[in-house]
């Protein structure tokens, strides 16, 4: 499979259909990032499509020495910010009771992949509880903290790249992450202490 710069070059040389390879490759990551920021499946889908479309139109400005994923994530983050500003509303959040996607009602814990048949029942129950509390805790982070957390910890982007995607200095990105971690630690703390206790 071709690497990202090769596909970008092919698209810029007129092979528009090759852009579909990039859409397939980054579709899930973009959808999950947008979903994490706006907390709604339908909005996340619209934002992701718009981000891919804008990325296509701006493809000539993509520098080959940069990572395509980081460049794309930055577009997604900006789209989410614009969306939230336009709608003048806060993210829906991860509230399980808010039922952001009715089709998933029977399995609200599918935010995090906690389904592991090999686990013992006690560990499985613990992971499900962590997933539930983590989802609720993420809802209480500010948008900047949540975005930084999603990019760095969930999508595994480096600190430097995270700062670039957020459009801020490295120190600022670190501060957002530190506050996010501390907030999550406080919110999940009791559960973790319960786990450590026995």
């Amino acid at each position: 499979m071709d690497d990202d710069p090769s596909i970008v070059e092919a698209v810029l040389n007129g092979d528009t259909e090759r852009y579909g390879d990039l859409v397939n490759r980054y579709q899930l990551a973009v959808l999950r990032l947008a979903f994490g920021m706006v907390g709604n499946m339908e909005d996340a889908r619209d934002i992701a499509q718009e981000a891919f479309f804008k990325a296509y139109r701006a493809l000539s400005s993509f520098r080959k020495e940069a990572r395509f994923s980081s460049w794309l994530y930055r577009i997604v983050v900006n789209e989410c910010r614009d969306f939230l500003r336009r709608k003048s509303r806060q993210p829906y959040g991860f509230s399980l009771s808010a039922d952001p996607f009715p089709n998933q009602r029977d399995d609200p814990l599918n935010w995090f992949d906690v389904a592991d048949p090999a686990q013992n029942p006690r560990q499985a129950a613990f992971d499900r509880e962590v997933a539930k509390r983590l989802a609720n805790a993420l809802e209480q982070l500010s948008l900047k903290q949540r975005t930084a957390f999603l990019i760095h910890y969930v999508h595994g982007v480096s600190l430097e790249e995270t700062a670039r995607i957020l459009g801020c200095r490295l120190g600022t990105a670190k501060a957002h992450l530190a506050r996010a971690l501390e907030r999550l630690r406080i919110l999940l703390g009791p559960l973790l202490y319960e786990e450590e206790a026995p």
Partner: protein
Amino acid sequence: MTGSHWERWLKDWLKAHPLKGPYTKPDPLFTHEVMERIRSEARQSHLKPRWSFFPKLAYALAGTVAIFTIVWWLRPQPPIGKIVDEIEQGAQTIWDLERIWAELEPDLDFTQTWQEYDRLVLTEVPEGVPSGSKQRGFDRMERLKDKKESLSSSGDFLESEGDWA
């Protein structure tokens, strides 16, 4: 659990249980919709007139000429009104009369001088000079004539020759 311990634990947990949201696998319909929009944009861009260098240059030159024309048209005008007023007031004509007067031979007989002056004024004053200007020249001549006559009678004419110049 300390900060660093907590961070390490969370990283490990997220690695084992990634956030996947409601999306489990790439959706072909999603890709199709994105690509359809891109194809539509590509088709529309083919229909649009393509801009090449020379049409752009032609438009730029035409624009520059238009701007210069407008600037030239709107440039500050000379005070035509003031010039017209001055001509109408006879200022230029009076200056000509002074010049003509200076050209006259001071030692000519006064009658000859007057006739010469009259000839020069009549022939050299350009057309369109208001009659008022001519009249002022003639009036001055009349005053000098009267003065000369009065001086001639008193024998003091030569001392006031400076008035002729």
